[in-house]
């Protein structure tokens, strides 16, 4: 950034000098201009009545006897003489600009024998970008050699424009973010400075609570992930789609996978993530290592393997989640291993992951989107980060209503009302008031159990509870999950079943009570 600025200002300076010198050399012309200028500044009052009456036909230079009208026409074409007078120095200037533009290309320039054809193509492409920039097209200010090569490989004008626009937007976002960061930094420093000047009381706060550091949280989350790798339910990402994606789609996928890992790490009860079919040295791994850095990638608490998921897990436990599946995932099964195809398809490639599942004869399922959501527009495939949040929530709470909140709002128009279940309808209304808490009597029993659970839980491990930066109700849900897990009965089925039949739910609640009674 700074470099750019200095270059630009230097450039300006240079141009000024050129201009001055040109003025010196073309003294006659300049003086002529100056006289005209002076003349004009004095005469507008005189000239106006003539010019306003008849707008000039400019192409055909009509000879006019009137003196002021003649001046007007001279005036109109004056820019030409200005530009022409500067034509020669500007040409050298242009070379200068080009040199500046191809600054990072200097390494190539020193090479004695490059492949001339390729280089000239690159040069031409660079010229093209420079000229498009001057023509005011949406083009990045700086381009790496890698990007330039990619650009020169594109064959059509529209594809080049699209690529350059993408780069330019990316650059703009990056710059805006950097500027914002700098501004914030400056503000912070200013406040600090101000405080220092006001009085030297920048002493450390004295509190009875221990300061909670970020790294402590990191450590805790890492422990939890490590624990998940030993004991928790696996979740597989099928990384075999790199051949059916473009470079940009692959980059998007990796960005989404990073989000997946982050959400999973922050969850109360993470999945054990497996990246299967991850070819060593393949495009996927390269991109992952590039984004994470090799060090972090090695430290990450996930299992990455080049083996197939069917070799890692028994076939009967695997379920491929795909939007094209005919089967609906009604209940989240904690004993299954779900597979998500890590694929971003900007141009929809339907049936791709289903084809893979069919080939391996795996069970397939899709999310119960139609059962819970009033679907409006858009394909039913979801991004990877949406998928992990849905799965994490349904795993913790067992409620699809909670989990499917992560489906983008633009695609649906709210949740479906449950038909022919009056009591559930009532429940929904109550729920609206009572902060998403189930209000059926059977559930109420459960809830008291939950409260107890929460309290004891707090007593057992207070620090853990304090960690939760999620809302209270959420933590309650999670503890409920814990409690039912202890009960050797998955939380998901507990609540779903309770909605279906009161009997079962009562039994569950009874169990819960018994358990707490024991405690």
């Amino acid at each position, binding site marked *: 950034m700074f470099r750019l600025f200095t270059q630009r200002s230097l450039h300006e300076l240079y141009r000024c000098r050129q201009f001055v010198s040109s003025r010196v050399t073309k003294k006659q012309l300049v003086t002529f201009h100056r006289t005209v200028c002076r003349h004009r500044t004095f005469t507008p009052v005189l000239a106006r009545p003539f010019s306003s009456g008849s*707008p000039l036909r400019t*192409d055909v230079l009509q000879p006019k006897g009137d003196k002021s009208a003649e001046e007007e026409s001279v005036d109109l074409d004056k*820019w030409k003489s200005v530009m022409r007078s500067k*034509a020669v120095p500007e040409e050298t200037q242009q070379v200068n600009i080009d040199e500046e533009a191809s600054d990072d290309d200097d390494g190539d320039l020193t090479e004695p024998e490059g492949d001339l054809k390729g280089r000239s193509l690159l040069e031409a492409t660079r010229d093209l970008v420079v000229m498009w920039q001057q023509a005011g097209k949406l083009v990045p200010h700086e381009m790496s050699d890698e990007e330039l090569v990619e650009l020169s490989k594109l064959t059509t004008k529209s594809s*080049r424009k699209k690529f350059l626009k993408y780069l330019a937007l990316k650059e703009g976002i990056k710059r805006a973010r950097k500027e914002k960061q700098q501004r914030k930094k400056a503000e912070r420093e200013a406040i600090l400075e101000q405080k220092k000047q006001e009085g030297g009381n920048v002493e450390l706060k004295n509190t009875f609570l221990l300061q909670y550091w970020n790294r402590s949280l990191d450590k805790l989350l890492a422990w939890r992930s490590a624990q998940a790798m030993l004991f928790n339910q696996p979740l597989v990402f099928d990384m075999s789609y790199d051949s059916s994606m473009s470079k940009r789609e692959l980059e998007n996928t990796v960005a989404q996978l990073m989000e997946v890992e982050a959400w999973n790490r922050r969850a109360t009860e993470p999945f054990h993530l497996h990246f299967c079919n991850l070819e060593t040295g393949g495009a996927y791994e390269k991109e992952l290592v590039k984004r994470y850095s090799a060090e972090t990638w090695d430290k990450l608490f996930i299992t990455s393997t080049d083996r197939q998921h069917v070799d890692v897990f028994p076939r009967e436990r695997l379920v491929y989640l795909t939007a094209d599946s005919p089967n609906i995932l009604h209940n989240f099964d904690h004993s299954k291993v779900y597979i998500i195809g890590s694929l971003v398809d900007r141009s929809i490639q339907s049936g791709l992951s289903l084809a893979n599942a069919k080939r391996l004869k795996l069970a397939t399922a899709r999310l119960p989107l139609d059962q819970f959501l009033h679907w409006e527009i858009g394909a039913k495939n979801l991004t990877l980060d949406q998928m992990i949040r849905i799965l994490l929530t349904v795993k913790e709470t067992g409620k699809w209503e909670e989990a499917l909140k992560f489906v983008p709002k633009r695609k649906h128009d709210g949740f479906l009302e449950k038909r022919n279940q009056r009591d559930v309808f009532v429940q929904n209304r109550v729920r609206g008031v009572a902060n998403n808490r189930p209000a059926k009597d059977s559930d109420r029993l459960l809830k008291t159990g939950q409260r107890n659970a929460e309290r004891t839980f707090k007593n057992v491990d207070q620090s853990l509870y304090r960690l939760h930066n999620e809302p209270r109700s959420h933590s309650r849900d999670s503890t409920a999950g814990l409690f039912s897990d202890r009960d050797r009965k998955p939380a998901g089925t507990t609540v779903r079943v309770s909605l279906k039949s009161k009997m079962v739910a009562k039994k569950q609640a009874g169990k819960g009570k018994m358990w707490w009674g024991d405690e």
Partner: protein
Amino acid sequence: MLKKKTALAAEDEQEPEKELDMKATRRAGKLQPPDRPLTIAEWRKLKESVGNLPRFDIKMICALFSSGSELGIAKSLLTFVAVETGTLSYELLLRYLTLCVHGGHDAEVFDVYGIMRGRFSTLDTGASSLFIKSFSRTARWREAVNILHEMKVVTPSPRNYGDVIAAAMLHGDMMTAWALYDELIENGLSPQQDTWETLFKGVKRTTEVEADNISHSEYEERLRGILSGMRNNQIYPQYNLVSSIKSWFESLPGQKWTGNWTSATPKGLCRCCGSELESIQLTADEYQEIKDRVMTDIIQGRDVFNKTTPEELEHFKEFVKRRPSFDVVVDGLNVANANKDKSKQSATLLAVVSELERQGLTVLVLGRKHMLRPSKSWERHNMNLIQLKAHCFFTDNISEDDPFLLYATLQSGNHCRFVSRDLMRDHKACLPDGATRRLFFKWQRGHQLVVDGQVAAGRMVRFQSVPSYDTIVQTSGDSWHIPYDNTEDRTTYEVPQQWLCLIRGSNSTQ
């Protein structure tokens, strides 16, 4: 998205006040261009009055362009900027150039060309295109050829070529025109119809005036080449083009061509001359080719699992082999779904199948397995009747049925047709090249039956008529039949209905 754009736009200015100003003017709407050339002082005042907008010059010239103002105003703006800053930016000159070219001020364009050449080492594609367009209209058109050759980093557009070719034709330089036309074709571009039009028109004019270094017969050969190119690429000329083709034919000396606007009878006869148009039926070779391509590219594709499974495909092949060859294959779900009333789906399908059976045809009905499960839409009684009247094959619920439809139809031979409303565009898109796609489209036009109107109980089931002739540019030596577009909104699955019939006079003695 908006945020991104403002981030980009905000790069130019540093002070936040300015940014605010800009936003304010943006809200207020576009700049109001002046109605006469202003002096420098007046421009300065105007600029200050809108709050010293950044990029005031560019915005103003855009406003001038969109309001279609006098060129003089733009000139005065340029003068103002030149005096103010000592130079003019490339972008401003480019916009000014656009203004000149669109206003038809070609003399001014020459000046701008000189200046821009002097100032900048290269020109961008936009400027080059504008110069080409403008120069082609004038006597300096040869320079346009040079500009065209300069911009070869990006392949010039067909429009660029077209402009220069038109100029060359206008000035009687056949060699250049045809050389450029060949280059255009070599680059894999498809020429615009205007370009063809100028080629047809230009020849007429110059053959009368001068005998160029290309002989008459060569012109004729070339232009007939264009026509056969249209045939090979299934291109239908617009009305303008086809009328210049007509007048070219009619102007051919000593051949006495007469052209008539006409249409074809359902039987495939020209209403004008009564001659038979080419049949839509495929030749044996073509049929074999389309059969192979459909198998490899549509059904198996890149991954056979995408649309079906290998076991199912084998099973189906075996099924088709065991049965006698079918006369008609019905896409069960498609036909049934034509009826909006869900409870009448199976009845609709039954009506169609019964009608086909009544005609004494061997029918195959394709469906999915879920149709066999009795439900409101798929009544057991109707489904049983259908299975009695026709051969049936039900694919897995997750497999596509269209590929099976295509396979069964193609396997049964050239006489076999299929019933479906599907336009089959997604399957056509699976085919690798244009030629095969056109072949597929031809086969589809000749073999697809579409149920006409609603199927109601007690009414005869009708099918839309299948054309017996191929809609394509065709010749028999002494006659040409050229289908042409006279509407703008023909979709890709439709073909034109209008024809130009050209016949050589009977008493022609060359």
